[in-house]
């Protein structure tokens, strides 16, 4: 326990921003996990007699246009944020890392083909592309996840490929061939563990992006719909009341979203700092 504490202290000292980001993200994760226990009201229960109630002792963050408790809905919304961004990250990495690995290792036309395919994904404005695909394939949560994940693949391909190329140039691939390694072993034992640094540093940043894009899609009205307690959908629903003075309906879920996105970005910054080989030097 003592060592765990000391480690935590060392982490906070070496990257205070990253540690703060991590703390906030963990807090959100706990909220997502324990939302049913923490929420004072069911998230989709409409209180017909208190529609658009201002924040008070009963409804801490007020109620929305359907009379649902905004606070409870924000807590439940964390489940959507993680429920979308974690599978997005998983799919993006599971597809992107091997493609980047093989493209960097094989080079030649394989590399060229992979790069061109990724360029195709990158030239479209991501929101527009996601919008089009989700609108065309059907507005299910699974489709939203898959579309955002596909857009993420390009990022992981790029960072992993770049690191594989560096390892190639430093002679690690030649040395591995020289030692008698078969190709699969070069990829899995020698290249993979040494080319994940960039991908790891990207994880929180891509997660923040997934949270943002999924909320944007919901805000535009694609994907998750009211009455589901999703932040983007909540902001959409609340946006019409901002002018009439019921600011809490849109502003409070918006704040929850912004804080999570910023915290994830802070975590990403801290992680890149920690994983930076120049900073870590040659010591372990």
């Amino acid at each position, binding site marked *: 326990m003592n060592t765990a504490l000391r480690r935590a202290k060392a982490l906070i000292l070496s990257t205070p921003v990253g540690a703060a980001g991590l703390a906030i993200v963990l807090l959100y994760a706990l909220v997502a996990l324990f939302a049913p226990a923490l929420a004072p009201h069911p998230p989709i229960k409409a209180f017909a007699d208190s529609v658009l109630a201002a924040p008070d002792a009963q409804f801490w963050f007020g109620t929305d246009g359907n009379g649902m408790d905004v606070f409870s809905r924000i807590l439940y919304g964390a489940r959507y944020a993680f429920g979308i961004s974690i599978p997005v990250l998983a799919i993006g990495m599971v597809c992107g890392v091997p493609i980047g690995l093989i493209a960097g290792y094989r080079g030649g036309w394989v590399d060229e083909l992979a790069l061109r395919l990724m360029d195709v994904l990158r030239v479209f404005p991501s929101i527009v592309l996601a919008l089009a695909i989700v609108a065309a394939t059907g507005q299910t949560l699974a489709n939203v996840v898959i579309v955002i994940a596909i857009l993420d693949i390009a990022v992981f391909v790029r960072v992993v490929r770049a690191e594989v190329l560096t390892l190639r140039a430093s*002679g*690690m691939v*030649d*040395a591995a061939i*020289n030692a*008698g390694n*078969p190709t699969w072993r070069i990829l899995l034992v*020698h290249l993979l*563990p*040494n080319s994940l640094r960039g991908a790891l540093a990207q994880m929180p940043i891509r997660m923040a992006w997934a949270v943002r894009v999924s909320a944007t899609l919901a805000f535009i009205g694609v994907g998750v719909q009211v009455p589901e307690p999703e932040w983007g959908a909540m902001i959409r629903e609340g946006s019409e009341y901002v002018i009439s003075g019921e600011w809490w309906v849109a502003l409070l879920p918006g704040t929850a979203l912004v804080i999570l996105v910023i915290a994830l970005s802070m975590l990403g910054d801290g992680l890149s700092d920690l994983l930076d080989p120049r900073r870590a030097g040659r010591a372990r």
Partner: protein
Amino acid sequence: MSAALQLDDIVRRFPGPQRGLFVHALNGVSLTVNAGETVALVGESGSGKSTLGRIAVRLDRPDEGTVTIAGRDTTRLSLASLRPLRAMMQMVFQDPWGTLNPRRSIGAAIEEPLVLHGKLDATARRATVLRMLERVRLQPELLTRYPAQLSGGQLQRVAIARALVTNPKLVVLDEPTSSLDLSVRADILQLLRQLQEEFGTAFLFITHDIGTVRLIADRIIVLYLGSIMEEGPATSVLASPRHPYTRALLSAEPGTFPGQHRQRIMLDGEIPSPLNLPPGCPFATRCQYAIPACANAKPQLVQGVACIRSREIGEQPAMRE
């Protein structure tokens, strides 16, 4: 007994900056490295010496010519069918830091070739690794360390142990000491000599450092723009170089004592582009002895020297003043 390495008429060209243009890295190089012998391959950067080393252990393939390792023609073998042969041809790279997997322990790195060429069980492998570690004079406790915890000299010893652990017939050493301190360098060279006596391995030692050649080589091969200029026993080439390029190369070596200067032969003239080599002697553009005939045909290697004027030039030993 067949030679450890035999290269016949090796040609290697790489795609150039435009379609149809090629970088002519090696232009018909033939050489032999006998069992237990150290051949130094010298030349300036861009002479093709590293490419030749990589072709010898088949990390690269020649466009023309044949590569024979211990009597086996490896020229046309695929990457997969070369695998079992790698135990007998090894390479020590210039930068040990970049070639060792930072996430694998020193013990795992040295053991890896044994695992992959799988003839020994775990106990025997461990014993071999420990013996190897002792041979390269590293403490056994380094086995569990990681590359980041070792010095450059120690890492190069690890790389040498890894190369020799399968008892290969041939080891190509590509400037193995150029990234090391001078004091460590002498140590490693001495170690290599000892190991060679012990294992009977043939070394192809790639270097541009004449001092290193003096310490280690039995024979010298001088490469310039992908062609052999001169070849011969180390003692005679060092004492009386016959090719003008070898003379210039040797004259660039710093003196042993401060203040002692050799007559440095300065080379004027352009190095021909490897994209477009002249039909004649590749060195003619920079050679102070060049005559018009030099530009006509590429001189063949005759009695160890590729120079049509070597006999006349040899009569002017006053070069060193």
